[in-house]
């Protein structure tokens, strides 16, 4: 399988501040890759580097096998969609769509044809002669996508394209984007801080922190087998329960409890004894009748109950440790009650306390 975008040992520094450090990333042809991270993690910076809007300090960027590290943005075969839509306010939608094509001095007929096609795909034909000021947020973002679309390029870059939209519209457009990707089969690189967008859209997710990629993998891998504490904590809502203890002889020990890690897939072989952290997702805790089937069974004291309709969030105490549990929306639990829970060590994550990496 050939790579669409290859990033090799990319460095970017503003003066003494290193924003990206020795970053490597290969993106497959037709892949939907999401760069995920909190603000300041370098995800947008990386995207701008790929686009050629920021000049890298060192390293290389290849697109479709060509070294484009020093090429102009327009020469890289990319299209880009921005958070603020960045539509040219004084031009009509048609003008916005055709601006890049005119700069490339394409024949008029071809420009019209491409604009018509993009407008067709995005269903914005009726808006072509309006100015951006007269459009709604969702329409604007469609036009912004259209502007990338008309360029007929292989790599699409999205810089938090849905962040400025309200929640409902965001969901709609997310679905549309996914459909668009299925239809076009282009390579898409998508920056977001929203893990739901990341999980739903991505073929692979790159979780970033401090200018480096913490983990690169499919949404399933990222969710189920986070490579380190940061990723484990960042992904999932409500976030994972972490309990600190000792790993010894195939068991995780906390206080006077021992959890034999039966069925847990270690990263490599049988790890040695050490201080460790176990991570258990609230939604992986079972209650009610299912407890009986669980390899490990405990009783917790319920502190607080948050019914959320579709499900219910329980804040409880496992020993002295705070513990969150996600239950079915129908569950009837009251604060102050004791609750029996079951945990499957195979679905838990175990981390080295010192290195914070998955064991």
């Amino acid at each position, binding site marked *: 399988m050939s790579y669409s975008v290859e990033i090799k040992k990319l460095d970017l520094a503003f003066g003494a501040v290193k924003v990206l450090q020795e970053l490597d990333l290969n993106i497959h042809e037709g892949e939907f890759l999401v760069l995920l991270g909190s603000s300041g993690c370098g995800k947008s910076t990386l995207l701008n580097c790929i686009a050629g809007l920021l000049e890298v300090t060192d390293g290389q960027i290849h697109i479709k096998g060509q070294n484009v590290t*020093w090429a*102009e943005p*327009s020469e890289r*075969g990319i299209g880009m969609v921005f958070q603020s839509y960045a539509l040219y306010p004084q031009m009509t939608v048609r003008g916005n769509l055709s601006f890049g094509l005119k700069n490339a001095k394409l024949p008029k007929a071809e420009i019209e044809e491409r604009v018509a096609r993009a407008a067709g795909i995005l269903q914005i034909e009726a808006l072509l002669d309006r100015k951006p000021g007269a459009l709604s947020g969702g329409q604007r973002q469609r036009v912004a996508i259209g502007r990338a679309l008309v360029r*007929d*390029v292989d790599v699409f870059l999205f810089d938090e394209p849905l962040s400025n939209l309200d929640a409902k519209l965001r969901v709609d457009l997310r679905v549309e984007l996914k459909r668009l990707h299925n239809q076009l089969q282009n390579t898409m690189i998508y920056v977001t801080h929203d893990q739901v967008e990341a999980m739903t859209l991505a073929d692979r997710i790159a979780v970033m922190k401090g200018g480096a990629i913490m983990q690169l993998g499919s949404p399933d891998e990222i969710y189920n087998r986070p490579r380190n504490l940061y990723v484990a904590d960042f992904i999932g809502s409500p976030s994972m329960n972490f309990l600190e203890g000792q790993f010894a002889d195939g068991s995780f020990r906390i206080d006077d409890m021992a959890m034999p890690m039966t069925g847990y897939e270690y990263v490599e072989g049988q790890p040695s004894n050490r201080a460790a952290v176990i991570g258990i997702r609230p939604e992986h805790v079972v209650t009610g009748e299912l407890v009986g089937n669980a390899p490990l069974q405990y009783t917790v004291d319920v502190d607080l109950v948050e019914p959320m309709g579709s499900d219910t969030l329980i804040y409880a105490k496992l020993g002295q440790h705070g513990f969150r549990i996600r239950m079915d929306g129908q569950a009837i639990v009251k604060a102050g009650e004791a609750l029996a829970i079951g945990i499957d060590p195979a679905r838990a994550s175990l981390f080295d306390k010192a290195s914070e990496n998955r064991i």
Partner: protein
Amino acid sequence: MTVASDPPVQTVRKPNRMFKNKMAKIASIPMILTALCVFVGGTLWTVLHSFTGSRMLPKRDWVGLAQYERLWDSDRWIISVKNLALYGFFSLTFTLVVAFCLAACLDRKIRFENTFRTIFLYPFALSFVVTGLAWQWILNPQFGFQSVVRGWGWESFNFDPLNNPETVMFGLLIAGLWQGTGLIMCIMLAGLRGIDEDIWKAARVDGIGTVKTYVQVIIPMMRPVFITSLVLIASGIIKLYDLVVAQTNGGPGISSEVPAKYVINYMFQAQNLGQGFAASTMMLVSVVIILIPWAYLEFGGKKNG
């Protein structure tokens, strides 16, 4: 560029730094030339000649610090510097305060806003040559404001700022504010218009009074506005010349002299370029001392990206 499915352009070599941003550099040539040749070059030329005994024409006969010694020995220069400090302090304070208050008044969705704004702004369009004269008349005790008030029956009313060395700078201030506040007010008004209305709602909900909101919330948010205003006002103060010439010509005596007038008089009237240059160097040095740290923080500190 590629807009079709043709492959991206291969550029392996890192381009020379010199040619990076080539067009921006070419387009900036007029600015660079102006900055280097006129402002830096002209300034160096001025500073250089302040160490000479140049009279009518610039010459290179070095006299060391003699011009500076004479400068600081001169009553007129000392008075000029003091006057500028006095005028500068009050002009800066009053312009900012008056302009802000007027802008705040106009921002309260009043009727006739356009009319008021135009009234406050129009003096900026008129040249000082005669407006100085108009103010000179208005402030003249015999047929100006004082005589009018006395005519109303307040016989002991005294208002004669221009003929009293103690108050003459305030007489100038009256005219200076008249001319300069309009523009600053417009800038402030624009700044106020840029403030999110939600801030006001929030302040109201929090029960913060109007004045307190202005002082504690709005003004800190208008930092860039105040900076632009400050540059405009301060550069005007330093260059204060036309108004003084038109209104008092430095009088009574030398009590309303200002540094720019000293510079210009000594360069052209006394035909002692060296002395004029020494004085303008002193002005420049003080500007630079104030400005460089600020400019560095304001413009130089930020990194792109």
